[in-house]
């Protein structure tokens, strides 16, 4: 059982929802990332999604693109992201880490080398935004062989066949992007999301995390009522932007703490 699967099993037995925050590694500087990761854990994160910055983040909105641009300007690279994960692992052996990014930096490093180095650094899951299942069967198999969970996306527009493919190639959890659009978009149709989750969970046979459009404790709580995990990204990046590097860990910890509290206040056994 992978670290991610173990975490979900434990949460399930406690009847709690997983909280999965996202930050971009190296934003606003490489030195800022470790303190922010600790703040996320202290605030109550179950899994950390660590964004690998890319020059052309097509599926992201302006907030995460800005974070990517700041990180790249500060000298961040995939190699350095793996270095940060290693360092984090020396202090925290338990919190699962999922790298989230785009295919090209991984292909530039070489897929075999990436998988080996990610496993050695202590990475638990990898989500490559522009690797849909039909283009990444071999990559997913290689990750699994290294005990890393390949995480895939599903969208409101995904077909049943698509869900079954993702269920076959992926493991760990499914990241359901709750609206068609880019990261950081505002509107979220709660009823529509709620209606889709049971069918998705059924088709993929693993926990379903919901992201895109989650802004605060209240919207996170509403998602927590229907999903197994709540993913929150752009809102945290905005908090880091507003706080500045020095104050960011304290402010992010408070934001995550509020969301954790809201999720834990859900009546036990929802969904």
């Amino acid at each position, binding site marked *: 059982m992978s670290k991610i699967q173990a975490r979900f099993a434990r949460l399930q037995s406690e009847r709690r929802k997983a909280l999965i925050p996202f930050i971009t590694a190296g934003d606003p500087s490489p030195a800022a990332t470790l303190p922010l990761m600790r703040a996320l854990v202290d605030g109550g994160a179950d899994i950390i999604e660590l964004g690998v910055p890319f*020059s052309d983040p097509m599926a992201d909105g302006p907030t995460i693109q800005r974070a990517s641009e700041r990180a790249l300007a500060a000298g961040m690279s995939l190699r350095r992201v793996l270095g940060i994960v290693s360092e984090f692992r020396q202090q925290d052996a338990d919190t699962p880490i999922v790298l989230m990014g785009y295919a*090209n930096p991984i292909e530039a490093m070489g897929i075999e080398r990436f998988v080996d180095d990610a496993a050695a650094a202590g990475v638990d899951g990898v989500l490559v935004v522009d690797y849909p299942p039909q283009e990444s069967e071999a990559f997913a198999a290689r990750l699994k062989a290294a005990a890393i969970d390949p995480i895939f996306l599903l969208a409101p527009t995904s077909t049943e066949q698509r869900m079954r493919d993702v269920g076959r190639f992926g493991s760990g959890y499914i990241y359901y992007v709750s609206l068609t*659009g880019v990261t950081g978009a505002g509107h979220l149709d709660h009823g529509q999301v709620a209606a889709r989750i049971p069918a998705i969970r059924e088709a993929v046979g693993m926990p379903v995390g919901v992201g895109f459009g989650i802004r605060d404790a209240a919207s996170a709580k509403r998602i927590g009522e229907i999903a197994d995990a709540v993913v929150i990204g752009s809102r945290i990046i905005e908090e880091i932007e507003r706080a500045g590097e020095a104050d960011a860990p304290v402010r992010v910890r408070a934001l995550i703490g509020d969301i954790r509290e809201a999720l834990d206040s859900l009546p036990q056994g929802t969904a």
Partner: protein
Amino acid sequence: MQMADASYTLPDEKGHFGPYGGIFVAETLIPALEELRLAYEACRVDPAFQAEFEYELKHYVGRPSPVYHAARWSRELGGAQIYLKREDLNHTGAHKVNNCIGQAMLARRMGKPRVIAETGAGQHGVATATVAARYGMECVVYMGSEDVRRQAANVYRMKLLGAEVVPVESGSKTLKDALNEAMRDWVTHIADTFYIIGTVAGPHPYPQMVRDFQCVIGRECIEQVPELTGRQPDYVIACVGGGSNAMGIFHPYIPYPDVRLIGVEAAGDGLDTGRHAASLSAGKPGVLHGNRTYLLQNEDGQIIETHSISAGLDYPGVGPEHAWLKDSGRAEYVGVTDDEALQAFHDLCRLEGIIPALESSHALAHAARLAPTLPNDRIILVNLSGRGDKDMHTVAEKSGIQF
């Protein structure tokens, strides 16, 4: 007469050209691409669609475009005979409109009232705005804010045609960023929006579809060149940014083994300076904008900024079929610098009375390099993909002239 070999059938059903091409996009776009693929496959074999497309090309674009023997220029160069495929005479002044008509017709069939496009120099934006006006569709064009500044006349042209031009402030504020932004618009408005990609790149089926719509160029040449010369050309030369005019003229010639296909990339200040846009000559394979192809990138896999005097060639990737033609050896790819392109630009103006686009001037420059090394009876066919009216400002600036 050489025998045509009809065994080339790429891409495969997943959109792959050997290891290149494919569908590398986020899950949110997958169903839209599948819908597009099915709609396109139906239109591809629908005689009514093809007949309407031909009618539009003839009556609205003005096809067939002529092939012209640049006799004076050829004599001056002293060697092979250079023939020009006059895509510059098309309505809107370039080959781009062929593809825009095809995709707009498809959008109408699919019931999508809104079209979006990305543009660099503005030619594809103008062609899209033109066709949108022609069919009564809402049109939004994304353009890097740096390009908006450099190409003010084309921005105004698009507005005259009723399009909304959205300046893109992210990244390097040029073509690749406009493409990112157009993809974001598409993913957000998938139900009513058709994304008209201007080149043979992007996720499947775009590289195949744009190629098919542009193949009219090469098909006409296969008829026209023998009418003028009694045989097919020895060389076919075209400039390559994303590569749509080159695929359009190359593809019908792929089965003719004696016809050498040469793509010309923008070598900018020179391939060794790092300031260029020659992805096939100086890049390496990777994944960007929905397909696997040659890319200009740094060692960490980040896409790097490109340079060319010609905005239409200023792109860090290239269509995946060109990547395949390069690896397979069926086509070869060379670089031409800004200065060489400018020289060819001026020569064609003065010797033939034709003002070529700076993009096409790259292809002309390589023809000028090649012709003197060949005997008089050899035939070089150059795709003159567009006219240079849009480039007056750039060329004047280079010559130290202000309007």
